[in-house]
């Protein structure tokens, strides 16, 4: 079986600072691959490069068998790469429903339609309502997204990402700032996705990471120092020294 995403020798520097340093990793279809590492390890920059927001200095990104290194973010999104942002990125003036429906719209037919009202398109609002219900946001559908609570916004952003029917989800700290109940719900939803959608998860919540991940990669100073099953990572002495050890101390 070939990997869904393969990152090879990715490098990115800002001035003298090497944020990504010859990084390689892969995500198998349906796998939940978590990336952990101390602050400043280059996790968000990695997500930016895979999603097409930041061009790498060197290296290749292969997605579904194609080299997407030179493709735009929108092009990668249409190919099946969806992402969430560390700092919530939604359309605050649109209702929650419109936010999700717009993401559905991106994958269903031309958006150069000028005359028929988009709010009346059941083909868009139907799937959008279903997704909102899955995240427990059905009641909030008509509310302006900007008026939702922080945790609800994080869930909405996940719903938006899923609405594009992705093959791979890039999630940048989806649990940051959510309440205990909200984060439990998100973990539940992510667990439900495994097998159907591959996920590359950057997350600080170790409990969630070790509960969810099929594989874990540890990123330190822009390099992957270890990749393996959660138990193997937990007991890897190098990882403990570089990362987990600090947490325990």
């Amino acid at each position, binding site marked *: 079986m070939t990997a869904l995403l393969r990152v090879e020798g990715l490098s990115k520097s800002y001035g003298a600072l090497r944020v990504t340093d010859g990084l390689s990793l892969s995500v198998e279809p349906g796998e939940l691959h978590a990336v952990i590492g101390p602050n400043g390890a280059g996790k968000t920059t990695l997500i930016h490069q895979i999603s097409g927001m930041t061009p790498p200095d060197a290296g290749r990104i292969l997605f579904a068998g194609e080299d997407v290194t030179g493709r735009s973010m*929108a092009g990668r999104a249409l190919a099946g790469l969806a992402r969430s942002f560390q700092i919530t990125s*939604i359309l*605050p*003036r649109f209702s929650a429903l419109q936010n999700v429906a717009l993401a559905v719209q991106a994958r269903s037919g031309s958006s150069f339609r*000028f*005359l028929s*009202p988009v709010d009346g398109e059941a083909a868009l609002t139907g799937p959008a309502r279903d997704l909102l219900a899955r995240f427990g946001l059905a009641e909030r559908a008509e509310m302006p997204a900007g008026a939702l609570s922080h945790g609800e916004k994080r869930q909405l952003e996940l719903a938006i990402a899923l609405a594009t029917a992705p093959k791979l989800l890039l999630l940048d700290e989806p649990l940051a700032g959510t309440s205990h109940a909200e984060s439990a719900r998100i973990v539940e939803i992510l667990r439900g996705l495994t097998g159907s959608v591959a996920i590359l998860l950057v997350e600080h919540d170790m409990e969630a990471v070790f509960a969810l991940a099929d594989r874990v990669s540890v990123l330190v100073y822009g390099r992957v120092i270890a990749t393996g099953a959660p138990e193997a990572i937990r007991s890897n002495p190098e990882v403990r020294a570089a990362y987990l050890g600090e947490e325990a101390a």
Partner: protein
Amino acid sequence: MARRLRREWLPLGLFLALALVPVLAPLGPQSFILSLMTRIVVVALAALSLDLLIGKGGLVSFGHAACLGIGAYAVGILSAEGVTDGGAHLAVAIAAAAFFALATGAVAMRTDGVHFIMITLAFGQMLYFLATALSAYGGDDGITLPGRSTVLGRDVLASDTVLYLAALGALLAAYLLLRRIAASRFGRVLEGARDNPVRMEAIGFRPFRFRLAAYLISAMIAAVAGVLLANQTGFVSPATMAWQRSGELIFIVVLGGLGSLHGAILGAIAFILAEELLSHWSEHWRIVFGPLLILAVLFARGGLAGLLTKGARP
């Protein structure tokens, strides 16, 4: 129905009032009223098209008067060459504006923020100077039209009332069209790109193409306004395209209330009436007008449309 009426009373009232103008005009100085109101309606049409860009697209174009000028010059040049047919004027105006929008938009849409404001200003200035270079058509001084555009060989527009109604018809048609566009798939993407372009790209939209299309639509509508404007003033000159005119159009859109569409009409009425009243009061009316503008920006956030409908939101 009642709720809808409550939400829509402002645009309904506006168009109703504008429709009554030809009926009420004979009660006063008729030709003055009709000419003033025609100017208001034409400027409202131009401002309406700009609201699609600024209000819906977040694209502050500082060169919109150029599109108005293209329409006016289509009438001026064709008339000078003996083509007086209004249909030909419109067709040439719209085609030329579309060409201008595609050519300049392809460059301008690569920039954003301040750079977009400045580059649209630059393109507007380019067209302004091009107009002053048209020595065969009056250059700096412009040209006086031999007469108004004809319709199927008849000079029906010679009547001020007919010209006014034609302008009002165009305004109503453009308003209804833009409302539909705003509520369509296309409009949704355009507004999304205004609020959060990165999010839009992350779900697979390229804002560039949608913005360019909006620019195209907006330019074509403004060109229609230009055709009407030339007919109203009977005169075409580069001054139509001066950057100050573009600034006034932006102000009208903001004064009326960004993105509400009917706000642009309200803004045009308020702006031109204020200008008219103040200029009757003193030749130095601008000494009051300037500060009024500043105060409007500082204090009337949400514009006139926002002030008037504050209590009526459902």
